[in-house]
């Protein structure tokens, strides 16, 4: 006789035995197979947690609780079903771990109390015991939360009670109970919003379902060693990592949750998806699938249509990958600035920066604090103090980088209890030049003096647009014209940005210097920047020209000439 026919025959015998009154040894066996199936699905239950809610290892906790219950009855020859139930309850109580473990032990406690000292268990006893289990579990908490294992226990009892009206077969009642528990588990997100938000069902309820299902599977002769899970558990899906793998031509990211009408052929499913897009990931959680895919514009609706053919689509999230990537780039550029950590007794520099690009340059030069501000957006004294008051040193240098901010910086120096030196840098290039001379371990007076001196090495050019008509130093300016300033003095006006830049370089005598650093502003088009920098390069082939994103408002260009 083959193995499978033996298994079938045994299962048949079990079904027959189950429909006779159940004795203690049978209950013991049922408890053990419940544990085996729960163990096989332990990770599935663990993965259901709504991170980071408490009780983050429900599957493990329930397994340990059930294990303790089974250990208690492992070697007992007891045939009295009531006594075995009491021993199981005792074991579960002793080993109860976590919220769901405690509730599980209470369920067993009520179950055992109902059976009391009964020799055997028949269908009506089972229903009564499950009712008592539910009542006992509910008594253990002042305010029961629905959508948890408690709800599943309640629905389980109700399902079995309803089945008793139609049949007094224990197997039929257990089947009805498993079905009721399954539906109850699926319904938990409707009762508990945090589950719905996380897209999971309640873990404790699911664990209880697995225990019951394990019993039924054993009776039916189904394997208990866990099916091969090809799709990963939903919680293990790491979709954020997929963004890094975007290939050209992928415009949309789709995440589709659906419940297939029938079991998915994963291989086939995968193959079909591969024709639509890339970065395919499939997650599975109790009958629900989550599909992640990157697709090009023209195929954006295909995965959706495909999922709808396979089952019921419950949720779709669509993101524009191109925009998402740009956002990430932007964050990379302007976001996390690494400020220089200072130690006690070292000199810390706080710089005022008018744009993210300039802030980044200051950060790379080793400032310990940054304040956002510049032309027409002067930071307050308080903001400047806030940038350095929490630094672990008493020696501070402030670079205002704008002549309108020097006063606020000096006020900050006066108010602060720390020893604060303000270097009167009127422009960003001056501040940058000063930073070059920073020696964090030096003497504050000496370092400050060096930094002031360093400012003389640099010429500052600024290009902006005039906001009114004015004539200064013989330069006539009309509102809306491009104007150039050399070290803060108005030197030219021009209707054209490129011409103004070239003219400014001439006024600054770039040919006598070595290096030009061009910080372009937030409002300048990148193509125009390239055009202008190429024009400057052509005009000054001897000089090194560096172009940096400054991100500053108002000023189209800030130039440092050294």
């Amino acid at each position, binding site marked *: 006789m083959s193995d499978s026919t033996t298994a079938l025959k045994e299962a048949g015998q079990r079904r027959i035995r189950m429909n006779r009154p159940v004795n203690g040894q049978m209950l013991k066996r049922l408890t053990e197979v419940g544990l085996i199936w729960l163990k096989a699905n332990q990770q599935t239950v663990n993965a259901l947690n709504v991170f980071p809610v408490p009780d983050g290892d429900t599957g493990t906790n329930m397994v340990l609780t059930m294990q303790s219950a089974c250990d208690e009855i492992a070697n007992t020859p007891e045939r009295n079903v009531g006594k075995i139930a009491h021993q199981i309850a005792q074991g579960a109580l002793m080993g109860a771990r976590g919220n769901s473990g*405690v509730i599980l032990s209470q369920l067993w406690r009520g179950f055992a109390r109902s059976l009391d000292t009964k020799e055997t268990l028949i269908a009506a006893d089972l229903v009564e015991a499950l009712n008592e289990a539910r009542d006992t579990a509910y008594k253990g*908490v*002042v305010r029961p939360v629905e959508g948890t294992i408690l709800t599943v226990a309640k629905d389980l009892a109700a399902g079995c009670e309803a089945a008793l009206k139609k049949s007094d077969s224990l197997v039929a009642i257990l089947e009805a109970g498993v079905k009721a528990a399954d539906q109850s588990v699926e319904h938990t997100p409707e009762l508990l919003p945090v589950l719905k938000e996380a897209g999971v069902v309640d873990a404790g309820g699911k664990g209880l379902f697995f225990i019951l299902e394990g019993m039924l599977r054993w009776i039916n002769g189904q394997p208990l060693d866990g099916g091969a899970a090809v799709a990963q558990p939903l919680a293990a899906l790491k979709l954020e990592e997929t963004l890094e793998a975007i290939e050209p031509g992928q415009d949309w990211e789709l995440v589709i949750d659906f419940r297939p009408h029938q079991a998915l052929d994963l291989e086939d499913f995968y193959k079909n998806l591969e024709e639509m897009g890339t970065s395919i990931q499939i997650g599975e959680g109790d009958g629900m699938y989550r599909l992640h895919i990157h697709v090009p514009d023209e195929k954006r609706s295909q995965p959706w249509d495909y999922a709808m053919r396979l089952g019921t689509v419950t949720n779709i999230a669509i993101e524009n990958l191109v925009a998402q990537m740009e956002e990430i780039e932007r964050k990379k550029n302007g976001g996390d600035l690494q400020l220089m950590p200072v130690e006690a007794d070292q000199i810390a520099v706080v710089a005022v920066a008018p744009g993210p690009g300039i802030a980044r340059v200051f950060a790379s030069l080793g400032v310990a604090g940054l304040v956002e501000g510049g032309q027409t957006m002067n930071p307050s004294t308080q903001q400047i103090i806030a940038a350095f008051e929490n630094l672990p040193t008493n020696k501070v240098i402030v670079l205002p980088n704008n002549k309108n901010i020097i006063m606020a910086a000096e006020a900050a120096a006066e108010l602060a209890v720390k020893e604060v030196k303000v270097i009167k840098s009127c422009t960003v290039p001056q501040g940058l030049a000063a930073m070059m001379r920073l020696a964090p371990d030096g003497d504050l007076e000496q370092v400050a003096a060096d930094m002031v001196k360093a400012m003389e090495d640099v010429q500052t050019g600024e290009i902006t647009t005039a906001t009114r008509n004015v004539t200064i130093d013989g330069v006539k300016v009309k509102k809306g014209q491009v104007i150039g300033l050399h070290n803060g003095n108005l030197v030219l006006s021009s209707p054209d940005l490129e011409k103004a830049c070239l003219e400014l370089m001439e006024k600054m005598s770039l040919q006598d210097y070595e290096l030009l650093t061009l910080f372009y502003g937030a409002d300048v088009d990148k193509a125009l920047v390239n055009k202008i920098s190429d024009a400057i390069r052509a005009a000054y082939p001897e000089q090194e020209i560096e172009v940096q994103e400054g991100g500053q408002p108002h000023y189209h260009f800030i130039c440092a000439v050294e």
Partner: protein
Amino acid sequence: MSEAINPHGSINVAPRAIATIAYQAAIESYGVVGLASKNLVNGLTQMVIKDPSHGIEVQYQDDQVDIDIYIIVEYGTRIKSVAASVAKTVRYHVEKSLSLPINEVNVHVQGLRFSNQE
């Protein structure tokens, strides 16, 4: 006072407010059938109280928040697990609501309650 500085000013959270959050979390914790005042003499501890400030003490010391909870537990549950899960739940809910790290959550089991005569 628990304080957080934001660009617009400061935020103060009174101990009583924290106690209320902790109270809600505690009574939704499985196995807890009530909170008890720590000052009641023995025998009265089983009185279930409704005022959160009685069963819960919140203390601040140099920016650190300590919470003491006095609970009554259902007889027949594993007290250690119940207490551990109360501590975990309370810490989670308070930290989530306040974004303030909690130093200690101490759970004191003041009594047990029999729901059923066995």
